[in-house]
């Protein structure tokens, strides 16, 4: 199961925040430097998440008690 999506979503949201506040230019220089550093790290980690991601495909089957069970689903030759 891919775990990166949540991180990716949060990172993107935070990045958009950082870019907005840096573009407004109303934060002190020292704060901007910190934001820039944080943002640059987020960009790198997002790129890495995309690079390493592999679509996970499972077929849902039903256990005797009705609960879902994941099975491999081969969709690529």
């Amino acid at each position, binding site marked *: 199961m891919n775990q990166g999506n949540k991180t990716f979503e949060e990172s*993107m949201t935070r990045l958009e925040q950082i870019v907005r506040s*840096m573009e407004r230019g109303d934060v002190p220089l020292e704060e901007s430097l910190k934001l820039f550093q944080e*943002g640059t790290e987020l*960009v790198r980690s*997002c790129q890495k998440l*995309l690079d390493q991601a592999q679509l*996970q*495909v499972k077929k*849902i089957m039903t256990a005797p008690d009705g609960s*879902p069970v994941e099975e491999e689903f081969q969709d690529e030759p």
Partner: protein
Amino acid sequence: MAQTILSITQLNEYIRGKMDADPRLTQVAVRGEISNYKLYPSGHHYFTLKDEASALRCVMFKGNAMRLRFRPENGMKVIAVGKVSVFPRDGAYQLYCSAMTTDGVGDLYAAFEQLKKKLSAQGLFDPAHKKPLPRYPGTIGIITSSAGAAVHDMLRILRKRYPLSNVRLLPVRVQGAEAPGEIAAAIAYANHYRLADLLIVGRGGGSMEDLWAFNDERVAYAIYQSQIPVISAVGHEPDVTISDYVADLRAATPSNAAELAVPDQDALRQSLDSMSTAMAVALNRQLKAARQHLNVLSQSPALRGPTAYIEQREKGLELLKSRLAAAQNQQLTRKNQRYIAAVSKLDAMSPLKVLSRGYAMAQTQEGTVIRSVRQVEPGQRIRISLTDGKLSATVTEKKEDAV
């Protein structure tokens, strides 16, 4: 045994005569599925109508075919009207088709419109009820056949666009009597176990009958009740089903649904790059502004030559000090003059001046100035001040003037 021997032509013509004489064969309507359909350059249509067990050769001449209200295709179920007769050259009978309509589709259209109206009145298509799709779906539930091309098309596109997702396939039958129940149940199941952030419900293209499961009200209600947002992806572009109306988003095809479901990683990478640039630009601008500010400050006299600045300020201070001293002097002189004037005024009024003119001042021993004879009694000692000294005296007599 004497037997008349007929030519083939004669026999075929005989049979044709028989058939043409039968009123039940001259105007017949037959239901079947089209196969081997061919349109000749002459404009005549040739095809075979068949059911589970048998086949019937058919021809429709250009003049009749021009009146068709649909384009016949293999697999289509139709009702053909015409006469059955023999084609003598082949010795085969066939249906000379004068008119043809699609079978059942008329009924399906009516049923579709009826259900659409009913569900619309119940608010199932209400735009206000439509849920927004997640921007970055972590898990996508696909409810479709695990055998069709549709699922592979969708997985290929999802893999290419957004491999951060997880896909859960809930296999269902997508046509036939069991399909609507299975599709509706899968939607409810996915909701019950919260199996996905987003559902894609659909199948690839097919005839109107093939897509009919997605015009079933059970499926419609299941989509409407789904807490998980649903993309409907049924058939090809022009096919619109009830599911499309109820779903939170309608996709033209399953592939299109996969495109709508997730962001495109190429676009995301681009957006990451542009955010990087934006941050760098913003920071540079701020740095530049700070540098400019610093320049302005360093150009100021205080920082350029501190000694000269201090000297200059010291001069200023000296100047201020001397101005202060001058002001103080001036004030002092003015006060002095006023003092001298006041003193000379006082001097003119001094009792000593009066005494010098020959007057004397009498005082009691206690120093009280004696202004009246009533203040003293004979025998009392008094003091008398003159201009150059004091006398002590005793009152010997007191005489009050009559006024």
